[in-house]
């Protein structure tokens, strides 16, 4: 499998939308799943100071679920990375 750079959609939820001032942005990352997700995290911190307190979903799955399923080890431009803030209870 050859890794390339892919431009995919990063979608924001909850109050992150206010911080980013947009519900979604396009980000170029490596198509390698784990590397690509790490690059998204770095982007979140560098661009918006979002460091922790969020969950990531790739479409409807977590990264480890996708790795376990092993169906799509590479990220593609149709994938949507969802950044979901967390809060306990309420």
């Amino acid at each position, binding site marked *: 499998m050859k890794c390339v750079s892919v431009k995919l959609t990063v979608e924001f*939820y*909850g*109050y*992150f939308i*206010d*911080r980013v001032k947009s519900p979604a942005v396009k980000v170029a990352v490596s198509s390698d799943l784990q590397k690509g997700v790490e690059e998204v*995290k770095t982007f979140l911190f560098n661009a918006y100071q979002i*460091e*922790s*307190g*969020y*969950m*990531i*979903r790739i479409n*409807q*799955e*977590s990264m*480890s*679920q996708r790795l376990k399923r092993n169906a799509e080890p590479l990220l593609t431009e149709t994938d949507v990375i*969802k950044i*979901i*803030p*967390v*809060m*306990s*209870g*309420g």
Partner: protein
Amino acid sequence: MKGFTGKILHVNLSSGACNVEEPEERFYRKYMGGSLIGGYYLFHHTAAKIDPLSEENVMVFSVGPATGAAVSGASRHCVTSKSPLTNTIASSEAGGYWGPELKFSGFDAVVLYGKAPNPVYLWIHDGAYEIRDAQNLWGKVTKEAQAMIREELNDEKIRIAGIGPGGEKLVRYACIANELAHFNGRNGMGAVMGSKNLKAIAVRGHQKPTFHDEDIIKRMAQEATEKVRNDEGAAAFKELGTNQNFEWNAPVGGVPTRNWSSGTFEDVEKINAKAIKNTVLKRSGTCWSCAQSCKRVVEITEAPFVDPDYGGPEYETTAMCGSNLGIGNLVTISKINEICNKYTIDTISCGGTIGFAMDCYEHGIITKEDTDGLELNFGNEGAALQLSEMIGKGEGFGKLLGEGTARVAERWGEEAKKLAVHVKGKEFPAHMPQVKGSLALAYSCLPFGPDHVSSEHDGSIAEAPISYKLKSLGLDEPQDTSDLNEVKSKLVWFTQCGYSAVDTLSLCQFIFGHWTLFDLNQLVDLVNAVSGWKTNLYEIMMVGQRRIQLFRAYNQREGFHAKDDVLPEKLYQPLADVGPSGGYTINRDDFQKSKKYYYGLAGWDQETGMVSQSKLMEMGLDWIVPEALLQ
């Protein structure tokens, strides 16, 4: 002694006798407040296996050392008693205005015994107290009763914690309201009040407690105000309230739908936080001296009319009386919320029980002959409205549902039991263990049954880097939210001790914690500022654990063991939808392994779940050893 009044009022409602106890400072240092003080008295003054609705039960209203300090999150009070819903010990916390006023009236706690021969209310003011006749108040909803008490005592600033007809009719999940819109919501504390013929406790006082360092309190109050203004998370919480939970539960398929059959609700956009803000919301509400202002106040000025004085639906209500019933209409949800609040019935258990009945109806287990003619299909808004009022009034089919899911399932038979979602008789709050794996442990093992604000939820350790607040508890391995394993056992146990400390101190989980305005180190700063003690996080965590171990020992005395720390069968069935959590289920082996690991962390026998004598000695609770070891 700083922070406390140093006085605890004991009231025997049977005889009318009252006395004031003045415990030594070391008692306060050990038990600190809330339901740890409450549990102490409950354990000492109730025999094993009493009927929670008999006059033998004891109930305790209590506050903490910081209650009444003018800082966000210090408004709360706790009610502790044996629960008529679970038959376990119960701790039920409320925000609002009553807690500080109790302290200003001169007391840290009120311990109630016996049963009044006729309906009464208790009037506590500036160190004085009296039992007053309430026969004219009996049968009144909370707004009427509150107005009548204030008129009778000629003071509009009196704060009242009381019950409506739901409590009087002994609905097993009746709650206690203060200021009409704040609740000791869970575990049926309102029914215990009703069983004692106690309509309300009215408090008023001018005895502000002395705090050790007012400057630190002022600084923290200012810091809270600035954070709410400047931090996006806190600002959004003020703007949208707890209904924000839809924002993160929906994308992962974690919204309980149609009696927990699915985690994806097709109309979630019609009932989420933004929908509330854009339709029925009148304003944000708040508690005494709190900058966070996370409460909802809704108003509907045309039929069916919703009175803003009764507040508005929080996330738990919106989900349990909305998606869980297949209802995507905020007007109906707001009206159900108003009905529950005026009759004082817990919206979570009410929604859970109606959802269970709807599920049984759709499965043909019950018919219109059983439901007083109501067609109980999911999504039938009229039936849900009518039924919530019937529960509150204790009428017909509603009277049966007022017994709660477990007892109704017992009556309807084995097929019904398969659809009943409860642990120890208590309905689930609106967070799904299939999606947040740690809640399988929390819901099954918590001493008072399922609760959503007793441990940190799984999203907080879903991704690296994990917040320093949780890393400092040794939680440094990211886990999938739905995973159930040893790391999740640690997540539950470590954070449960912290959350338990917050409750013991009668502080707000939405202000002091891991995602909130202040972390637990700042909680220590506040305790030191109010009390003058030189406490530290270790002592505070031990206080939190002491409460858990005392509760466990109480339940052990009542006959609860590992056999009761279980999950309902429905959670082992895959979620039936094509949303993000489609097919999710609880794995039985994962649950058993994690539970044993959790028991080990808590110092309980890994087979029986029994708390050991040495653990109780470690907690300074050796006085309960002889009773706790009774089998």
